[in-house]
């Protein structure tokens, strides 16, 4: 009997090929280029970089910024995540979505908002914003949702019966300390590792707030000096840190899957008369981190002249942004769904690891790799078109849709597939007739999450968009140099609407998803 290659094997290899072409090949080329100088192996770029006087201070700044931001996100995000998951705090659902808003916007929006706040307060107050303190504040606002939401998901996933058993023997603080937190610890630690890695790779905020870090050096070498070797050498430590972070994540989490469940389940903490006090505290945090900067940013946006001007100057960029993000989201949803489905039984850890490495690798690093790989006359059909940007989005955010799909599959009993298999259905038939209809909500969530992430992305938009085809986040950055504040504010408002409207839909979809299938 001859060996036949099964359809699912072919599709799996095609999916892996997409991930390899979009993400792994550029990184490999970049790593190779950094040690290949004038036709032979050389560590010259690294030697020059390491011996350069500015390298180590920049490296130190990157680490310092990442550590401080991670600590602040942990200090605020973990307690709020626990409060949202386990307490009867008033308005917790509203607060949760409000605090999530900065994450769905390009990170420099919050920085821009704070710059408007300090402009109103006077020139002397800008000293603290433009530097280390300002960067920590802004990046904490942006990445707080990661620690908050992952803590929320981890704590929600703790079996309520375990807590109730503990509650029979002791008060809730003890149960929280001895049962809930230890069981949620891997998810919380993962969120902190993720924040650390995302801050290490952040470009737009440190560059706007004039705080010198490694990604800024890498970007400058690439965009201003056009020195690929030096840009790559500056980027490789960032890639290595991402790789290390993902290794730690793999060790911490192994095969755990996160699913969103109703916050009403396993309610542990009754705040009693402190309920309103804590609501006020969370409200103040929301005002400080979200409402104040964003209202300052959007204050000038609500004039017809400014909106008209914004549409005239950047209308095409808005359309491009939405279009590129929608195309990438569709590819990402399909890729994530197929990868999640095809690796249910084996290979999932490897796929998780590879896609998470690509997610953690800074956008600047990935962009340099993509440009280096595709910048040749025979591949200009990719390099000079939005395809390069879409490849970048696909590599960077594939982890998100894959993991969301895996979490969705976790809710579908395996026997439904087995029953279909025994009925004689082929793989494709089972996929389209059983899994797709049962995963509609997961697919919607994955599409919207991918769309929002692509829309808010700055480094890929800046470095890989074709000439004259820049998406809105890159266009706003360009216009910030000479555009009037009302024009910038209007553009930011349009951008925010393009992200927040789908977020509202996502909120509804997740609420519906809270009931396991």
């Amino acid at each position, binding site marked *: 009997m001859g060996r036949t290659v099964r359809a699912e094997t072919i599709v799996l290899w095609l999916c892996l090929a997409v991930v390899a072409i979009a993400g792994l090949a550029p990184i490999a080329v970049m790593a190779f280029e950094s040690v290949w100088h004038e036709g032979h192996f050389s560590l010259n770029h690294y030697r020059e970089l390491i011996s350069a006087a500015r390298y180590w201070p920049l490296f130190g700044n990157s680490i310092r910024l990442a550590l401080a931001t991670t600590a602040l996100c942990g200090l605020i995000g973990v307690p709020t995540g626990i409060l949202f998951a386990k307490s009867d705090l008033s308005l917790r659902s509203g607060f949760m979505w409000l605090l999530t808003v900065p994450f769905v916007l390009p990170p420099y929006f919050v920085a821009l908002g704070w710059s408007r706040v300090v402009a109103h307060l006077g020139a002397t107050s800008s000293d603290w914003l433009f530097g280390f303190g300002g960067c920590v504040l802004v990046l904490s606002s942006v990445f707080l949702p990661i620690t908050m939401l992952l803590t929320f998901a981890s704590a929600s996933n703790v079996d309520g019966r375990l807590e109730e058993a503990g509650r029979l023997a002791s008060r809730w603080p003890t149960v929280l300390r001895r049962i809930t937190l230890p069981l949620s610890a891997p998810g919380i630690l993962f969120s902190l590792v993720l924040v650390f890695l995302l801050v290490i790779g952040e470009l737009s905020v440190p560059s706007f707030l004039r705080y010198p870090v490694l990604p800024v050096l890498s970007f400058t070498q690439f965009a201003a000096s056009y020195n690929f070797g030096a840009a790559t050498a500056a980027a490789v430590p960032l890639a290595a840190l991402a790789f290390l972070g993902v290794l730690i994540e793999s060790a911490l989490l192994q095969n755990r899957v996160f699913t969103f469940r109703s916050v009403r389940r396993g309610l542990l903490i009754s705040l009693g008369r402190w309920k309103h006090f804590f609501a006020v505290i969370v409200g103040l945090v929301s005002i400080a981190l979200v409402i104040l900067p964003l209202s300052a940013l959007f204050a000038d946006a609500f004039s017809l002249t400014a909106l008209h001007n914004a549409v005239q100057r950047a209308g095409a960029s808005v359309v491009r942004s939405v279009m590129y993000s929608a195309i990438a989201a569709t590819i990402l949803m399909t890729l994530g769904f197929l990868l999640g489905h095809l690796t249910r039984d084996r290979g999932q850890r490897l796929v998780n690891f590879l896609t998470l490495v690509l997610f953690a690798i800074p956008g600047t690093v990935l962009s340099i790799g993509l440009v280096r790989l595709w910048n040749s006359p025979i591949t200009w059909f990719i390099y000079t078109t939005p395809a390069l940007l879409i490849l970048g989005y696909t590599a960077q955010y594939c982890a998100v849709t894959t993991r969301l799909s895996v979490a969705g599959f976790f809710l579908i009993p395996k026997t439904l597939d087995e029953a279909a298999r025994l009925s004689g259905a082929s793989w494709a038939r089972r996929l389209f007739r059983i899994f797709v209809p049962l995963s509609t909500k997961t697919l919607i969530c994955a599409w919207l999450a991918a769309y929002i992430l692509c829309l808010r992305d700055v480094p890929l938009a800046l470095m890989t968009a074709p000439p004259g085809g820049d998406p809105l986040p890159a266009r706003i950055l360009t216009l910030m140099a000479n555009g009037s504040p009302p024009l910038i504010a209007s553009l930011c408002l349009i951008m925010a609407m393009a992200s927040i409207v789908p977020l509202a839909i996502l909120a509804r979809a997740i609420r519906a998803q809270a009931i396991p*299938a």
Partner: protein
Amino acid sequence: MNHIELDGVSKTFGERIVLNDLSLQIEKAERLVLFGPSGSGKTTVLRLLAGLEVPDKGEIRIADRIVASSGKNLVPPEKRDVGMVFQDLALWPHMTVQQNLMFGLTARRVEKREAEVRVREMLRLVGLEHRMEAKPHELSGGEQQRVALARALVSRPSILLMDEPLSSLEDERKRALASDLLNLQSRFGFTLVYVTHDQTETDLLASRVCRMRDLQPADQINGATRIVR
């Protein structure tokens, strides 16, 4: 004549040995009940027969054809001529009763008109013709069991595997369903392999009981069914 043969079959999951050198023969149209406590490997035997698991060692034959041998499934589940009722029933929640039954027939390329006739006939036999358009969640527990049974039998398999499908039902319903199952078996003549840890179900259904203990069958009891019909 033996319809199903397991010869020296072993199966482990990680470190845990689930079956150890199991040999078992089942005759055509026999009603074998695998009886035993949780963890004795009963469900694994069904899953091995269905092709949903691969034996680490040993050989499985169905109708004189080797379907699995030492670490390899030689015949995929869909080609083993096997129907299965799962413990959780595994009814597809997004499909109606009729669609649940049609799914397997259209997958096997049975002509649409003939498939519809067969579905209607099968639903009549289990007393659910009037519930064709209902979705699984609209049915009672007993009705869901009947749909699962009808779905497993609609493609007329020669072997029916049942994994404790009646465990959640009260005695009266259990007896009614067991009676229906025996009627269907005498009509279609399939070989039944039934897994349970419930003595009542064993008494109702078995023409032979295989007591599973210590990772292999401890003893086999031949006996007539004691159901009162």
